[in-house]
């Protein structure tokens, strides 16, 4: 059988049998009544039998689970055949609803009731909805939803994973994730990286793999090979016996001592503490959306000060780059963005929201300045989605008015990369957001699975724009201004070497990637990194660039990265 090619989003090489994640259970049609010939009494019996079957299956799983999981499963098993739940479903049946619809609505009511109680009870609402999906699947005679149960570790194949699936994903049983949908920013990719599981997304054909088929998964190269041969077994064995990564010691540099601060992307105080504990030399991207999301109105300045200060306090005397609010597109805010825009990614988002809703940005800068004044961190501020030198200049003016000394911009729009020299005359630094820069350079929505191959920061066009930004910064009469990278590109150790070779001054990534990037960077002298950068820039395709550079970095194999 031929290999399936997708996009590797989390490195690692393993071999194991495939199990398919059943599709989510679809809601029964609202108008569905009793089928012809069925009686309410007969259907009530069918419903009770299905509930009992689901209960027995959950009890079986509880018997095989670890203590805490077992307790949750036992409680969930009781919910499956709960007398109150079944009684209200039977009432709906008697009122003329179809069987699936009756249990669907009855469980909905119970879940709403639990949600309204808040706290622990609200969390249990999810269990009720899980039980409901299982009962409906049983009534339809289709496999139960959720991650399949197994006695042996397996490779999980799915269309895509939802955040809720993480809770039931046992990293000791799942060897790797392979999805037909999704992209580098999909939930599957995020889950895989946080659990350290190899993963390949956008692998067309993944859902067609027969359950039980043995496959080889290469999460760095994005390859899934059914019926692996000796070569694949050797690769998997080498990965299994890889050298453990040393924790990051807090100084990012090349083999010849060229310093490249390794910073962390964070989204709140708890994140910041975790990043500091993992050795981050500061914060290269503080996503301030965390204190705005899920709100109907703008948070007060005092609320913002407290939220920002929690992050700044984790990095005394270290650099913290605060990005002003980046709302819009995939992060809508009811009080700031227009959800009816036909092209939100090209719409009023990021810095541009200040045009439609002036005031929010200036108040945020005031809050950042106040928090900075109360902390020991060295605070830099940057605006997202800057496209022109005028915008950069106007933002620098706002920063100055708020008393913030180091204004900068994110380079995500190709125009800002191409005109980096003009942009950087007006601000003190630039930080390249490779996720959006790739999306806009390739004109490919980063949330669309079918476009995942275009959304690859190894695309030579993206690397050329990184170089254009660095060249623009170096062209200034005064001292060159620093250019960093924040985005998934910085977390890929091979690409990190290329970025440093292109002249990037600092790299910011999710904290768990620090150790791998630091180890690989330290194995390469600066001149060698520059040669590898030239190799990548000269490649015709993203795949060629990646393969050529990886072939020159044998340490990646040794460390299983």
């Amino acid at each position: 059988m031929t290999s399936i090619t997708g996009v590797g989003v989390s490195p690692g090489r393993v071999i194991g049998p495939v199990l398919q994640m059943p599709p989510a259970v679809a809601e029964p049609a609202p108008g569905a009544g009793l089928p012809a010939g069925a009686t309410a009494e007969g259907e009530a019996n069918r419903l009770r039998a299905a509930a009992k079957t689901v209960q027995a299956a959950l009890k079986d799983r509880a018997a095989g689970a670890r203590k805490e999981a077992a307790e949750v499963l036992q409680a969930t098993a009781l919910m499956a055949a709960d007398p109150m739940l079944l009684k209200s479903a039977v009432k709906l049946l008697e009122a003329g609803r179809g069987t699936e619809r009756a249990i669907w609505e009855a469980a909905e009511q119970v879940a709403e009731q639990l949600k309204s109680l808040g706290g622990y009870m609200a969390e249990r609402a999810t269990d009720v909805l899980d039980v409901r999906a299982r009962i409906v699947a049983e009534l339809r005679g289709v496999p139960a939803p959720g991650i399949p149960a197994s006695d042996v570790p397996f490779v999980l194949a799915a269309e895509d994973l939802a955040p809720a699936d993480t809770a039931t994903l046992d990293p000791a049983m799942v060897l790797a994730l392979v999805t037909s949908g999704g992209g580098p920013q999909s939930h599957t990719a995020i889950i895989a990286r946080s659990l350290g599981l190899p993963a390949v997304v956008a692998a067309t054909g993944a859902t067609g793999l027969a359950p039980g088929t043995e496959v080889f998964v290469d999460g760095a190269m994005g390859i899934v090979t059914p019926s692996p041969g000796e070569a694949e077994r050797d690769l998997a064995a080498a990965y299994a016996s890889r050298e453990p990564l040393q924790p990051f010691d807090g100084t990012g540099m090349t083999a010849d001592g060229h310093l490249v601060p390794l910073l962390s992307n964070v989204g709140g105080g708890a994140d910041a503490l975790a990043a500091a504990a993992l050795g981050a030399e500061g914060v290269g991207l503080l996503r301030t959306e965390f204190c705005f999301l899920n709100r109907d109105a703008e948070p007060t300045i005092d609320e913002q000060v407290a939220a920002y200060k929690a992050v700044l306090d984790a990095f005394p005397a270290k650099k913290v780059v605060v990005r002003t609010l980046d709302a819009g597109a995939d992060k809508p805010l009811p009080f700031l963005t227009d959800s009816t825009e036909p092209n939100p990614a090209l719409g009023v988002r990021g810095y541009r929201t200040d045009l439609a809703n002036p005031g929010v940005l200036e108040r945020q800068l005031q809050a950042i300045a106040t928090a900075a004044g109360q902390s020991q961190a060295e605070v830099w501020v940057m605006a997202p989605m800057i496209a022109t030198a005028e915008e950069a200049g106007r933002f620098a003016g706002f920063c100055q008015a708020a008393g913030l000394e180091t204004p900068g911009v994110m380079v995500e729009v190709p125009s800002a990369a191409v005109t980096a020299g003009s942009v950087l005359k007006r601000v003190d630094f630039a930080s390249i957001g490779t996720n959006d820069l790739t999306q806009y350079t390739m004109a490919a929505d980063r949330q669309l699975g079918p476009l995942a191959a275009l959304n690859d920061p190894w695309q030579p066009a993206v690397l050329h724009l990184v170089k254009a930004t660095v060249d623009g910064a170096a062209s200034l009469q005064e001292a060159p201004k620093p250019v960093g990278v924040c985005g998934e590109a910085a977390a890929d150790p091979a690409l990190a070497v290329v970025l440093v070779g292109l002249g990037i001054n600092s790299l910011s990534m999710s904290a768990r990637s620090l150790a791998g990037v630091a180890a690989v960077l330290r194995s390469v002298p600066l001149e060698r990194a520059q040669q590898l950068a030239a190799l990548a820039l000269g490649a015709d395709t993203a795949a060629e660039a990646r393969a050529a550079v990886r072939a020159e970095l044998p340490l990646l194999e040794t460390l299983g990265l």
Partner: protein
Amino acid sequence: MPERIATVASRVGLHARPAAIFAEAAGDQPVEVTIALEGAPADEAMDASSILSLMSLGAEHGSKVVLRAEGDGADAALDALVQVLETDHDAE
């Protein structure tokens, strides 16, 4: 109708594991048993074998609840269930 008043001993209240243990025990009884918070009207009492009802009851540690049952074996059933409620299952 025979009834008993019991005090919830579990530190987390009648949630989670204690609720599961109690619902299962109530389901094992030969008679139907209802549960209500002390002082609540008897016609608002809920099925004691329903874990979902128990969870929405909101009985905390130290709450007093009324158990009611009728028929053969009602008294024995109530006595058994009072004992379950007055045990701190978290301490086991």
